[in-house]
């Protein structure tokens, strides 16, 4: 793994990155709890993606850059500015949920305030949409960069190729990311695609494609930093294939022991980005175990408070079902 000092980030920034990784993990654990006790209907998890996701998100300017995420991107949405309470309001289906006001299933993130564009469950529709957001920067002579993500499963959808092709033609300031955890629900890599690397699809459409180890914070961060700078400077789009580990089942409705080998599941803890990142932070002298424990305690308290607050918020009322179908209603 690359040394943290090579990132060019300050110690404070690196500790902040770790805090987001840990917050993402703990908040997701809370969402699973809420599903298991029947307070929410569903959860789909980014556990095992967080280190690469935080590295990705930290390379962007959250005051102006746009983000079109997919459902495993809770943690980068937090980096972009959403709060744990915002996320919980969504999972609980509350009226003040900034993502969809209780209209979408859990884990469908969006925030007008933070330039996070709402997404569907029809995986990959956000890719063509992101070209429109990015083309808006060219039309308006603005210097924002757009980020859109999906899993390696949806990477095979036709609309993904259509969007990457157009981005290449127009040299759009747009970063595409495939978060590759090796499973499209139960379907493994060998049944999904035949090429060695999905990042090879970048050059196929006329732009850079880089495969990075999403367990390695610095490798991931530096790759994103470079492509974001290039995009902002008019050099066009890039594709990053972020190699990550899916620590959980696909979703709360899935049991991955049915299709993952015992060895694979037992080995997950060795590929847990959070644990690897913690070891690195200790080894390289950024944090002590005690400091991490203190931070963990603070985060758990923050999440408990956010949960209480979110649960106390009102549900949408039935009479609002036809609101905002059309502009005049």
């Amino acid at each position: 793994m690359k040394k943290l000092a090579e990132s060019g980030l300050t110690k404070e920034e690196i500790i902040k990155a770790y805090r987001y990784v840990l917050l993402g993990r703990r908040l997701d654990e809370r969402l699973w709890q809420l599903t298991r006790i029947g307070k929410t209907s569903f959860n789909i998890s980014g556990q095992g993606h967080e280190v690469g996701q935080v590295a990705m998100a930290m390379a962007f300017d959250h005051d102006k850059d746009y983000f079109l995420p997919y459902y495993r991107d809770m943690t980068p949405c937090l980096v972009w500015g959403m709060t744990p309470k915002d996320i919980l309001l969504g999972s609980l289906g509350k009226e003040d949920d900034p993502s969809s006001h209780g209209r979408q299933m859990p884990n469908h993130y969006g925030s007008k305030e933070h330039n996070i564009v709402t997404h569907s469950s029809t995986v990959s529709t956000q890719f063509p949409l992101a070209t429109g957001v990015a083309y808006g920067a060219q039309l308006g002579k603005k210097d924002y960069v757009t980020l859109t993500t999906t899993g390696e499963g949806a990477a095979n959808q036709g609309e993904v190729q259509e969007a990457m092709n157009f981005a290449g033609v127009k040299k759009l300031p747009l970063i595409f990311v495939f978060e590759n955890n090796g499973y499209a629900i139960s379907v493994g890599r060998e049944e999904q695609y035949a090429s060695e690397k999905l990042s090879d699809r970048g050059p196929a459409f006329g732009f850079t494609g880089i495969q990075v180890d999403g367990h390695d914070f610095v490798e991931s961060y530096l790759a994103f930093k470079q492509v974001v700078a290039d995009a902002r400077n008019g050099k066009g789009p890039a594709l990053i294939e972020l190699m990550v580990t899916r620590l959980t089942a696909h979703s709360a409705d899935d049991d991955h022991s049915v299709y993952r080998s015992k060895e694979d599941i037992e080995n997950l803890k060795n590929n847990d980005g959070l644990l690897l990142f913690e070891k690195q932070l200790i080894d390289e002298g950024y944090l002590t175990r005690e400091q991490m424990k203190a931070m963990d305690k603070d985060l758990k308290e923050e999440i408990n408070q956010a949960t209480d607050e979110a649960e106390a918020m009102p549900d949408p009322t039935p009479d609002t079902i036809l609101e905002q179908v059309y502009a005049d209603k």
Partner: protein
Amino acid sequence: MAMMTYLEAIHKGIEEEMARDEKVVIFGEDVGGMKGGVFGVTKGLAEKFGDERCFNTPLTEGLIGGLAVGLGTVGYRAIGEFQFADYILPAVNQLISEASRMRYRTKGDWTAPITFRAPYGGGVRGGLYHSQSTEKVLFGQPGLRIVTPSSPRDAKALIKAAIRCDDPVLFYEHKRLYRLLKEDVPEDDHVVPIDKANVVREGDDITVIGYGMVLNHALKAAEILSKEGYEAEVVDVRSIYPLDKETLVKAAKKTGKVLLVTEDNLEGSVMSEISAIIAEEALFDLDAPIKRLAGPDSPSMPYALPLEREFLVTEDKVLNAMRELAEF
């Protein structure tokens, strides 16, 4: 007033809106550059407004759909052209999964103020894939609007209304009417409501409801029937979805005899829904069963002339159906 074809009226409406609002952009396959569309609707727009606001896309309809939705989220009013209504099908995911509910799924935080243009309709020897009336594929999808003009006058006024509308609007253009119809069109900023049907001829004996080519057939047939002593009320649906139920039901009640005409297949067409609405709202005002006139239930309109003619709802077929109903 100026004499314009249906095609020229659409072009003029787009040109006026692009001049009026710099956030309006237009794109699609062959739309930009010197060609300006396979029918020429956008000819000259790239030259006038620049290659950034009027441009070609690759041959990727899903992209056209998503590009328009994305531009909407950052404050633009996109006009996406599907070269033929038949080719909307690869973009249906974007239209239904994104455009139709961008507003709804964020309760108005994000919107999709888009116009999707698409030439539809048969009678041009277009065969199975250049003749279809695909409006029924998207009909009944709340959040979307579908409109179609049946005259040059409405073509200009309605395209302007669609571009200004804050909802995603599918603007269907009957390709047979592009150069067939020519009339005086207001040169000023004339706009019609996006959600209203239009009574284009008044009469007391029968009510004919339709849009596009068959609506024009009905108007001609009505003049012939008038000489035979029957006066037809002819209603242009214009706003295919959501339907203007009030105007349609009122017209049905007025004569009590209703003929619904579409050049689409009979089953599951827009007319099936209009028929249901009239049955629910006006049954006791009817003096005859609701009659639907439509194409046969073959998958699409075939190419060979005898087959195309067999499929088409011609002026003769409309006249016969109207006369039969009048005499009922």
